[in-house]
Each structure stands twice: as structure tokens, then as C-alpha cells.
């Protein structure tokens, strides 16, 4: 047992490094793809790494009126929470490191922490723009949590019903049993709705257009981040990058948990490599749809419209998905 703990502890930095590298890499890919879609050349893919290095060596300015320890502490908290997400999510075919210590509910809370850190950091920086941004972030957090919670609860309910006896909120269990196989045709549509809703929550969760009202460059000059500079800004930048990978991995674990090694009948190291590559491909697809495509194809919403979109349309769609799954369960039970 002790050995296991040591092994786990040793793996944490490795996962953190992997998360950071993947996050920055996907940020670079995101920027290049967005640029190409806009008929621009765009930066090289390694640009986020350079940005990070540059920000790290820049002066770290703390405003005079800011609450110093909150202002400086929040970026660290954001990065720490984002990396912790990765410890609970299966990545590249490996089981989550902290398997058995936490489940989907914990992940929901962990996902909140970087945003909360931004909010507190915004309030602590004593700028009217940052305050407006922080207020907006809180409002949009409340908005997207609702459809997200409904969707996650629906999945858990599906599991508890279809496979009684296993921990229904355990992400590893969900990943081991693809959800699509648990439902009939009606439930399939319901699941598809839930999948689309999680994809729609993704831009809100990682704060990109159209749901980036809290940062809104042209309105409130990047809102909560307006007073941040240097190392602190770099940490927020990092947290954003890692969180993107984290949220996309959760989506993959729930809806696209398939590996490729079985289909190609590979074994040993080849299988691991193939699965890892396949995971990267899935990650790419999710990030492309949930981040790149959405952010280039629509303008920014007003905060009232964000609330309307999430509480109204997304929540109704999530409830519809839930009822379709329930209906499917009844139909299946009736059929048996």
C-alpha cells in the first residue's frame, strides 16, 4: 500500500507536466486553426510556450489598493485546481491516478475552483472593470452550472439504473462502460442531447466567445484579468490551458471512452501508444468543436443573453435529454 502511495505521489508531477504541455499545445493549435479559418497565417504552434516564458520573466505588478495575499494567491489556486482535475480524469487510456478517492461530483466542484479564483482575484484587484468582470463571471458560473449538473446527474442516474451495484458517480466506471451501450434508440437521442449540452457548456466553462462576457476585451478590457501581469497572469493563462484539457477529458471519459487498440488488435506498448494517440485525436476533435469552432463562428453575448441561453435553452434541452433517457429506461423495462 505504501508503495502505491509513493508511486502515486511520484506520478503527480508527471501528470501536471503532461497537463501543462498538452494544454499549451492545444492552445497553440487553437490559435493556428482560428487564424487559418480567418484566412490569416497565425502564430507558430509553440507560441503559447513562448508567451508563458515571456510572462514569467515580466514584472509582477500588484495594484496599490489590491488585497495582496488574495491577489497573489488566486492564480496559484487556479493552476492547482486545474491540475487536480487531471488527477481524477482518465487520460490517454490510463486510469485516473486518484481513482476511488473522488467522483464526478468532486470534479464538478474542482471545475468551479479556477473560475472562483478568477472572481476572487478580480474583486481583490480593486478595479471597477475587474469588479464588473467578477460579477459577470459569478452570474455566468451560476448559469452554466445548472445544465451541467442536470447532464451529469442524468448520466449518473442512467448508470445507477442500468448497472446497479457500481459507484454510479465514478468516472472510471463510466469510462469503462460506454454510455451509448446502456440505452435504446430513444435514450440515444437523449444522450446525444446531453453530449451537445456538455459541448455547449465547454466554452462557458473555459471562458471563450460567445460566453466570455466576464473577460470581454472590447467591453471591460479583459475584466477580472485587467490588473494582472507577469507571473500571476502567466498562472491564469496556464490554468485556462490546463482546464481546457481537463474539461475535454471529462467529456471524452463520459461520452467517447473508446480505445483503438482493441479494434486494431494491438498489444503491449503498441496498444498503449495507439490508445494515447487516439486519445489525442479525440481531444483534438472535442477542443476543435467546443472551443475553436464556437469561438470563431459567433459574436459575444450580453450577460443577460448568457443567462437566457444556459438557464433557458440549455437547461430545457438537458431536461429533455433526461426525460428521453428515463422514457427509454421505461420502454426497455417494459420490453423485457
Amino acid at each position: 500500500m505504501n508503495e502505491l502511495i509513493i508511486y502515486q505521489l511520484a506520478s503527480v508531477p508527471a501528470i501536471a507536466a503532461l497537463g501543462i504541455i498538452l494544454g499549451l499545445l492545444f492552445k497553440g493549435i487553437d490559435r493556428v486553426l482560428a487564424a487559418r479559418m480567418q484566412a490569416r497565417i497565425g502564430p507558430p504552434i509553440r507560441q503559447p510556450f513562448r508567451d508563458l516564458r515571456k510572462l514569467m520573466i515580466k514584472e509582477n505588478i500588484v495594484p496599490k489598493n489590491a488585497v495582496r495575499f488574495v491577489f497573489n494567491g488566486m492564480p496559484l489556486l487556479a493552476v492547482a485546481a486545474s491540475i487536480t482535475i487531471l488527477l481524477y480524469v482518465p487520460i490517454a487510456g490510463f486510469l485516473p491516478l486518484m481513482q476511488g478517492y473522488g467522483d464526478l461530483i468532486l470534479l464538478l466542484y474542482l471545475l468551479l475552483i479556477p473560475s472562483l479564483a478568477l472572481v476572487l482575484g478580480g474583486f481583490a484587484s480593486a478595479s471597477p472593470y475587474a469588479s464588473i468582470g467578477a460579477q459577470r463571471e459569478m452570474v455566468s458560473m451560476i448559469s452554466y452550472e445548472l445544465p451541467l449538473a442536470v447532464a451529469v446527474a442524468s448520466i449518473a442516474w442512467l448508470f445507477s439504473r442500468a448497472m446497479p451495484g457500481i459507484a454510479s458517480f465514478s468516472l472510471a466506471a463510466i469510462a469503462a462502460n460506454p454510455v451509448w451501450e446502456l440505452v435504446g434508440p430513444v435514450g440515444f437521442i437523449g444522450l446525444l442531447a446531453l453530449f451537445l449540452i456538455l459541448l455547449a457548456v465547454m466554452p462557458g466553462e473555459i471562458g471563450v466567445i460567445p460566453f466570455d462576457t466576464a473577460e470581454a476585451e472590447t467591453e471591460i478590457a479583459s475584466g477580472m484579468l485587467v490588473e494582472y501581469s507577469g507571473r500571476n497572469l502567466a498562472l491564469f493563462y496556464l490554468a485556462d490551458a490546463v482546464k481546457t484539457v481537463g474539461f475535454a477529458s471529462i467529456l471524452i471519459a463520459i461520452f467517447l471512452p473508446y480505445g483503438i487498440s482493441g479494434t486494431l488488435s494491438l498489444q503491449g506498448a503498441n496498444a498503449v501508444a495507439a490508445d494515447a494517440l487516439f486519445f489525442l485525436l479525440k481531444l483534438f476533435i472535442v477542443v476543435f468543436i467546443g472551443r475553436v469552432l464556437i469561438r470563431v463562428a459567433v459574436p459575444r453575448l450580453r450577460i443577460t443573453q448568457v443567462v437566457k441561453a444556459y438557464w433557458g435553452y440549455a437547461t430545457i434541452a438537458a431536461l429533455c435529454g433526461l426525460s428521453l433517457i428515463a422514457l427509454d429506461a421505461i420502454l426497455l423495462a417494459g420490453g423485457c
Partner: protein
Amino acid sequence: MSEGKTFKIAVGPVHPALKEPVQLNCEIEGEQVKHVDIELSQVHRSIEWIGTRRNPVQVVFLAEKICGICNICHTLCFCEAVESIAGIEVPARAHYIRTIAAELERIHSHILWAGVAAHELGFDSVMHYTWKLREKVLDTTEYLTGNRIGKAIVTIGGTKRDIEEKQFGKIREACNYYRQNFSRLRDIFLKDPIIKARARDIGILRRDDALSLCAVGPTARASGVKKDVRQDEAYAAYPDLDVKAITPKELLGEIRGDVYDRIAVRLLEVLQSVELIEKCLKQMPEGKIAYESKLAKVLSDVKQLKGEAIGRHEAPRGEVFHYLKMVGEETPYSWKVRAPTYNNILSWIPMLKGAQIADIPIVAASIDPCMSCTNRAAIADGKELGNEKLHRLSVEKTRSLKKGPGSERGNCN
């Protein structure tokens, strides 16, 4: 959110939403704008003052530098004023060339504005897309005048360059390009549900407000005021072209005076400009391009003029107005420039009342503001000056200008 408690935020003078310095002091309650105060004069370049220290031939190109985007309109106004003082008759062909240049400028300016508006909405893809479309008109301008932006084609008594028969092909090609892309732009801007949600019923300027605030150009036309210098007091080649002021009614069927209407008006004006250029090419008469081809002769002709005159032009943003007074010296005695933003800027106040913070950038951009063209004064100690004293000083200044030389001259503040 805090009920009834207002706080202040300053948008500008340096803010990502505003491309030029101006300050909007907004009183905010929650997300709603309760009150707006505009603080102008953040950038004053004393161009008029420089202009009164140069001869008219030099000022033509100084006028071009008033505004980077609409450089034809200021040059044209100034030349019109000089021509009417000196009694110079501009050849018909020059009028047509000037019109083509002015309409190319309108296409360029409106498409540039469309991109800026999209950027204010956070829709950068559309900004890049529209600016990609704009390249065609810039290339055409470069082909005709020798530079992409600074055209340097209008001069006193005519134009500097001719547009020859062999160049018509490229202009027609550009016209066709915009004709084909018009429907695409219309779909992107007017059919997109989110742009519609962000622009419809936002920043409404009612017709009576537009009239009482003397709004000009697309801002006034989008509110249903049929006002266009090209139609009302046609100059250059416009009398032959039969220009009609455009209102959003033609495309949308109704007039609401909101941001959406202003987008529609500008898009329609791009199409109108294309039509005007095509008409110009068809009707262009033969003849000289300037009353005098030797610049040295022009220089001596305008050296000792006496009299005063105005020049007017419908710039892409609205009416530009120049006043010029010469008293027999080499340099103008007084030169006054009024850019369209000067009229339009106060319409921000009715537009922004009750709007959300998120609407400030797009509403501010919707009048297509151009600050350095507008600012004609810099106040160093504005706080102590007060409205009354400022008014008195302005009246004194105007009187001294009216009296002419002999009275105190100079510090044009």
C-alpha cells in the same frame, strides 16, 4: 446585484473599445447605463493652426492628413473653397474623377467600419473577413492613385491624375467583386441570429432626436432622416448621377434607428457607391483633368486671394464642412474644419441611456467616430474654465476672426 447603487466607470480615453481617445464617463447601476457624459478634446493636433501658416497648395495635402480614412473628403472641401474664392472652373472630367475617388473611399470606409463593428461585438472572424474584402478596393485605389490610402489625387482646380480608358477594366472588376459579395455580407451581418440579438433595438436614435442633435450621414439616415449632401446640394459629378439618400426602409421595410439599421444603411451605401462608380465610368466626358496643368502657375494663382468660401462634401461618415477666409496674403487667414463626428457624437447620449455595459462598444462604434478629425480645441485648465467662460471666449474669438486682419491673430485654441 446592488440595487439602486450607482458607480462610475470611465470608458476611455484609452480603452480597447475605442480606437481613438475620447472619454465616456458612465454611471452604472448593475449592468445598466444610467447616465453618460462625454469628454472630448483628448487629441488635438492644431491642423487648422498649421494650415494658416502654409499656402493653399500646401494645405491641400495637409487637409488630406486630417483623416486617414476619409482623406478625399477634406481635400475636396478645401479645394472647393479655394476654387470658389479664386473663381476657378473645374473641368467636367475632373469632377468625374473626383467622384470616383470619393466613392471608392466610401466603399473602403464602410467596409472597414463593418469590420470594426464586428470586432466590438467580439466577432473577430467577420472583422478579418470584411477586411479581406476591403483589400480589393485598396488595390484599386493604389492602381489609380499610386497609394493604398493617401490618394493625393484631388488638387486645386482639378485632379492630379487621369483615369484612362485602359484603367476602366480594373475598376469595373472591383465593382463586380463588391456586387457579388454584397449578398454574402448581407447574410453575415443581417441574418446572423446573434448579431441580430446584439444589434436590434440597441442604441436607438429617434428621428426627432436625430434632427434636434443635427446628426449627419448614415447615423441620421438610419433614423429616417433623408439627408445627404450629394442629394440636397449636389456638387462635383453628383448632379448627373441622381443620388438618393438611403434609409434602412429599402432593405428591412421599417425604420427603428438602432444599430442594426445603421449596419443596413452602410451596407446599402456600399452597393450605391458601386452603382455610382459604374455610372461615372459610363458617362465620363473627355477633356482636361485640371484647369491648369502647371503647378507653379496654380501656386501663383492662389497666392493673393481675397474672400471667403465654404466647401461641403458627403464623407462616408456624414457631411464635412470647410470654411476658408483669405485676406490677400499668401496663407489663409482662417480655416475651419467641421468633421461629421462633431455632429454625431452627442447622439451617443440618447443612444446609451438604458443600454447595458456590453452595448457601449457597439453603440459607440455605430456612429463611426473619428476623434482626431473632430477635436478642434485643447483645454489645458478645463476644470476652472466653466461653460460660461468658455462660451464667452469662443464668441470673442469668432468676432476677432470676423473683423479680419489687424485684430489679434493667432493662438487658435
